[in-house]
């Protein structure tokens, strides 16, 4: 199966970000179009180079090495994809370009994963892929792939090479899945993040496709408030089959990351400028 236009649109989604250094207002901001499916730590080298050039902060200095990012006064949980972080911002996604603060002091060691030479973003990405494949195929497919193919997935993502990524990812995405990898996120008012994950099969007991409604009932058995599930800035109708949503809208880490929002789904979409317009003729 070849990747279709929805998967390509998901891959191509980008957010304009403006990185500022509040510690030194004379430093010019760094503007970047960041892939929604990418990760902020992949930009660390660029940010350090920027600070070195404009803020006199040497790339090897503790400040540059202990660099972290903040938005709306809270550390950015940068192990999560960029687009998910944007969609989680409360009370609503910030205006674009998204202003993100660079911090060089007081790295929040009890809140943020530290990425560096001893804990690479690449190995974390692989950790996510392995877990997703464990859910789908008891890790058989990812374990059968050699290191070369693992590297190709990462390099494809890092270098924005959809074809390079897809030719390997196809193997992970095809075939019958035992359970579908997903997570449901809810940003709390106090800044905390609740993450729900449970075992969900693609079909109900009667073999009809499991829907997002069914999923909510499994994950939040006693929940009664009207809510919406959204991904890539787009609200999904609750009758959407989970398997379809997974196939079209999973992130490169092979998880479907869903944001739980209060209120009913507006089937016309969010109308946010960052939202991806789904090409309805691609729906199967």
């Amino acid at each position, binding site marked *: 199966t070849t990747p279709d236009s929805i998967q390509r649109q998901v891959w191509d989604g980008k957010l304009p970000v403006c990185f500022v250094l509040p510690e030194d207002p004379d430093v010019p901001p760094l503007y970047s179009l960041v892939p929604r499916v990418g990760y902020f730590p992949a930009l660390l080298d660029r940010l350090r180079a920027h600070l070195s050039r404009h803020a006199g902060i040497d790339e090897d200095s503790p400040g540059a090495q202990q660099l972290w990012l903040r938005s709306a006064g809270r550390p950015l949980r940068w192990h999560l994809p960029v687009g998910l972080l944007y969609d989680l911002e409360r009370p609503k996604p910030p205006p674009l370009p998204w202003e993100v603060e660079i911090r060089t002091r007081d790295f929040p060691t009890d809140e943020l994963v530290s990425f560096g030479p*001893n804990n690479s973003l690449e190995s974390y990405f692989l950790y996510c892929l392995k877990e997703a494949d464990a859910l789908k195929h008891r890790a058989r497919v990812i374990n059968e792939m050699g290191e070369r193919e693992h590297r190709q997935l990462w390099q494809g993502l890092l270098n924005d090479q959809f074809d390079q990524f897809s030719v390997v990812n196809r193997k992970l995405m095809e075939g019958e899945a035992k359970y579908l990898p997903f997570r449901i996120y809810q940003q709390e008012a106090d800044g905390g993040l609740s993450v729900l*994950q449970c075992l969900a099969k693609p079909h109900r007991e009667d073999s009809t496709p499991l829907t997002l409604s069914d999923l909510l009932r499994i994950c939040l058995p006693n929940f009664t408030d009207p809510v919406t599930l959204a991904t890539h800035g787009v609200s999904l109708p609750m009758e959407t089959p989970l398997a379809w949503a997974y196939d079209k809208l999973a992130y490169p880490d092979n998880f479907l990351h869903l944001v739980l929002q209060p209120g009913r789904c507006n089937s016309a979409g969010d109308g946010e400028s960052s939202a991806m317009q789904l090409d309805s003729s691609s729906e199967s």
Partner: protein
Amino acid sequence: LSGPMLSRSAFNEALPQLLARLSGRLSWPMRLATVGAESDTPVMELQTSFLVAGPAADASDSAPVLVQVRLHIGFSSAYACPVLHFCLSQPDGVPLAASDAADFVRVNVESSTGEAAGQLDLASVLSQVPHPQLGCPMYTLHPCRTAELIGRLTSASEADRDGSGEVRDTNAAALAVLSWLTVYGRAVGLQVPQSASCS
């Protein structure tokens, strides 16, 4: 997978027995904690904290370097097997630098297995990740090969008497987790005494 699989509920049921077997023989505080929920099943862990000798900072040090290990023994539904999450810090609470944490695990693994330094690709199995329920950064050993080990352990213990493919015997589950911990705990300097597996 060769043996019957552990489920989260079987793991939860085995935890009190695991706690009983360990707390009598290890002098550290241990407790059961519920850290979240997966559908309507509680996500439970056995949590403990202990001091162990760390890798020597330099060969001429006469005083042993101590490392505070905060260990959470939990369960991964994705892999259907137990999983370790841990924090490493100096005795005063300052987290170990990433390179020191990697050295700590490497030295522990080498001294348990006798494997030479160059052969172990630690980066492919040790990562700092957000704890799945608590969210805080913790180290973990990738469970990818653990499921295989647990399968062998449960198979050997004849834990699937009703042929369901799932471990339903709490005693068997506790012993399988204990055997797994005896192996994997070594990576963080945890020595499980043999007496823990006796009735």
